[in-house]
C-alpha cells in the first residue's frame, strides 16, 4: 500500500510540475514525412525533404523529424503511416497524391494525430490537404516552349493521369499555342513518378520523333541528361531548380516551396491551433517559384515570360481564362470566364487541340 501511495504521489507531483512548467515537460513535437521516391531524387521528394530540413532547423529542439522514403503508393503506405502514428508522431505529412485514401484510412484510426496530405482533395477533421498551383508555373513553361520550339513539336512526360498532371498539360499547351498557333503537343504516360531509365527512354523517344522541347511531370533528372546528349533540345526543371543543367537544356523550372507551409503548420500543432485546411497556393503566395530563365532564351521572350509570371502572381491573370474549348470542341469557358477551383481540382479532360486520350 505504501508503495502505491508513493507512486501516486510521485505521479501527481510530476503532473503538477508538467502543468506548471509546460515548456520543460513538453516532448518535442514529432513530425513524420513520407516520400514516394528516394529523398535524394533531385526532384519532388528531395524538395519535400529539404523543406522538412528547413522546418527542423527553424524549430531546433522543439521538433523531432521522422522520415520514410521510397514508400510505394498502396497498402504499404498505410502500414508506414500506422507505424509512424503508433510511434508517437503528432503530425504526418504524406507527400504524394497516391497516398490519399491511405491517409484518410489511417487518420480515422488515429483521431489525435494530424495528417497533411499533399496534392489530394479528401479531407477529414484531422486531415488537411495542401497543394501548389503548379499550373501557374506550367503556363510560363508553355509560353517559353511555344517560343523556343523550332519543330513546333512539344513533348510532355506524364506520370499518372490525375487532375494535377492534366492541369499541367492543359495549361502548358494552352500557353504554348497562344504564342505559336502551329504547336503540337505529344503526351507520353509512364505510370510512375520516378524511374530514371523509363524517363530517359521516353525523352529519347520524343527526341527521335522530332520533339525539341520536353516538359516533364516525373521526378528524376534523367530527361535533362538525355536532352543534353541530344543537343538542341530544351527542358524545364521539375519540382527542384535543376540549375546544374542550365543554360542548356534546362531553360527554366518550376520550384516547389514547401518550407514556409511546413513551418506554419507545425507551429500550429505546437500552439494547439491546428485545424484541417485546404491550402492551394500559387506563384503569388510563394508556393510555386519560377526558376531563373537561362541565357539560352532570347531577351524579349524572357521579358514576356517574366511579365506573364508577374501578372499571374498579382492575380490579374488566371491561366485558365476563356474562351477555352474542351477537346471535343464543346465550350468549357466562355470569353473572359475564369475556371473555378472545383473544376480545376477534378480536371479530367483535355482542352481543344490536344490529341490522344487520357487513360482512365
Amino acid at each position, binding site marked *: 500500500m505504501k508503495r502505491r501511495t508513493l507512486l501516486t504521489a510521485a505521479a501527481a507531483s510530476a503532473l503538477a510540475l508538467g502543468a506548471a512548467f509546460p515548456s520543460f515537460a513538453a516532448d518535442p513535437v514529432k513530425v513524420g514525412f513520407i516520400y514516394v521516391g528516394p529523398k535524394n531524387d533531385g526532384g519532388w521528394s528531395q524538395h519535400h525533404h529539404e523543406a522538412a530540413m528547413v522546418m527542423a532547423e527553424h524549430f531546433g529542439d522543439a521538433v523531432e523529424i521522422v522520415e520514410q522514403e521510397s514508400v510505394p503508393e498502396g497498402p504499404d503506405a498505410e502500414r508506414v503511416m500506422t507505424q509512424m502514428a503508433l510511434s508517437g508522431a503528432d503530425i504526418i505529412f504524406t507527400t504524394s497524391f497516391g497516398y490519399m485514401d491511405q491517409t484518410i484510412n489511417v487518420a480515422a484510426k488515429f483521431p489525435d494525430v494530424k495528417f497533411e496530405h499533399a496534392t489530394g482533395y479528401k479531407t477529414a477533421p484531422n486531415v488537411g490537404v495542401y497543394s501548389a498551383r503548379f499550373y501557374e508555373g506550367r503556363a510560363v513553361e508553355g509560353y517559353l516552349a511555344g517560343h523556343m520550339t523550332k519543330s513546333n513539336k512539344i513533348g510532355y512526360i506524364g506520370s499518372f493521369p490525375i487532375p494535377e498532371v492534366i492541369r499541367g498539360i492543359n495549361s502548358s499547351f494552352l500557353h504554348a499555342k497562344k504564342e505559336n498557333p502551329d504547336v503540337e503537343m505529344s503526351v507520353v504516360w509512364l505510370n510512375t513518378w520516378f524511374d530514371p*531509365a523509363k524517363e530517359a527512354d521516353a525523352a529519347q523517344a520524343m527526341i527521335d520523333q522530332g520533339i525539341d522541347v520536353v516538359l516533364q511531370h516525373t521526378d528524376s533528372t534523367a530527361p535533362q541528361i538525355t536532352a543534353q546528349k541530344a543537343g538542341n533540345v530544351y527542358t524545364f526543371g521539375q519540382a527542384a531548380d535543376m540549375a546544374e543543367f542550365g543554360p542548356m537544356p534546362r531553360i527554366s523550372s518550376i520550384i516547389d516551396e514547401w518550407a514556409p507551409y511546413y513551418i506554419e503548420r507545425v507551429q500550429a500543432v505546437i500552439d494547439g491551433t491546428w485545424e484541417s485546411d485546404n491550402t492551394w497556393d500559387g506563384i503569388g503566395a510563394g508556393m510555386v517559384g519560377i526558376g531563373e530563365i537561362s541565357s539560352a532564351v532570347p531577351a524579349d521572350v524572357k521579358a514576356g515570360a517574366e511579365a506573364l509570371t508577374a501578372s499571374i502572381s498579382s492575380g490579374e491573370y488566371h491561366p485558365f481564362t476563356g474562351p477555352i474549348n474542351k477537346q471535343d470542341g464543346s465550350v468549357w469557358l466562355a470569353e473572359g470566364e475564369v475556371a473555378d477551383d472545383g473544376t480545376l481540382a477534378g480536371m479530367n479532360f483535355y482542352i481543344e487541340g490536344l490529341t490522344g486520350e487520357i487513360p482512365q
Partner: protein
Amino acid sequence: MDFGSINPVVLLASLMVASTPILLAALGEMVTEKSGVLNLGVEGMMIFGAVCGFIAAIETQSPTMGFVAAAAGGAALSMLFGLLTQIFLTTQVPAGLALTLLGTGLASLLGQNYQGMSPPRMPDMNIPVLENIPVIGPVIFQHDAIVYLSLIMVVVIWAFLKFTRAGLILRAVGENHTAAHALGYKVKAVRFAAIGFGGAMAGLGGAYISLVRVPQWTDGITAGIGWIALAIVVFASWRAGRVLIGAYLFGGITVLQLNLQAAGAKVPVELLSMSPFLATILVLVVISARRHGATSAPAMLGRIFHTS
C-alpha cells in the same frame, strides 16, 4: 496503326541501347542456372554493379574502368551468394532474395555522395566501312563497345555451352550433380565460377544503365530490370539465342510503345504499357512450345548439393 511517322532506323538503334542491360544480365543468369544454381539476386547484383561502375568511372574519369569495376563488384557480391549456398548450403531462393535486398541497400549507401554527378561519356565505337552501309550501318555499327560486347557474348556463350568441354562439364553439373561428382568434377568449383560469371554480367548490365543509358546515379536506378532478366531466362528456355530474342523484344517494344505514344498513335496507353510484357511472354512461349516444352530447365536447378 500509324507507323508512318516513326523512323525504323532510329527506332532500331535506340532499341539496342534499351535492351543491352537486360541482355547482359539475362545471359549471365542463364549460365548460372545452367550450372544448376538459381540466383534470384540479379536485381541486387545489377544495382550494385551500377553503383560500383559509376563511382569508379567518376573517380578515374574512365568509362572502361567503370565497367571493369562494375563487373568486379557484381562478381564480388555474387560470391557472397556462392558462400551461402555452396558452403553453408542455405536454400537458394531466400539467399537470392536476400542478395537483392542487400545489393539495393548497399548501392544506396555507397551512392550517397555521387548524386547528380555526370560520369565521363562512353565513346561510340563506330565500325569503319560498315557504319556507312545505308540503313543497317547506323542501326548496327554505330554504338558503344558494350553493345557489341553483349552481342559477342551471345555467340560466345552459345559456343561455349555447345562445343567446349568446359561447357559440357558445366551442363553436366547442372543436369546431374551427383553423377558429375562421381566422375570427379568439382561441382562446387564449377558452380562458384558460374555464379561469379553471372554476377559479373549482371554488374555490367547495371553499369550500362548508370553509365550509358541514363547516365547518372539515383537510388533504385535499375527499377526491376533484373527481374525481367530472370523471367526472360525461363521463357527463353535456357538458350542464348532466345535470350537475345527475348531481351531485344522486350527492350524493343518498350521503346516502340513510347515512340507510338510520342507520335500520337490512337492506341490506349494501358495496352501500350503492358505490350512489352505480353509480347515477350507470348513469343517466347510460342517458340518453346514447339519442341520439348518447359522440360528444358536444368534438372538440378535450385537443388542443394553436398558430398556425403
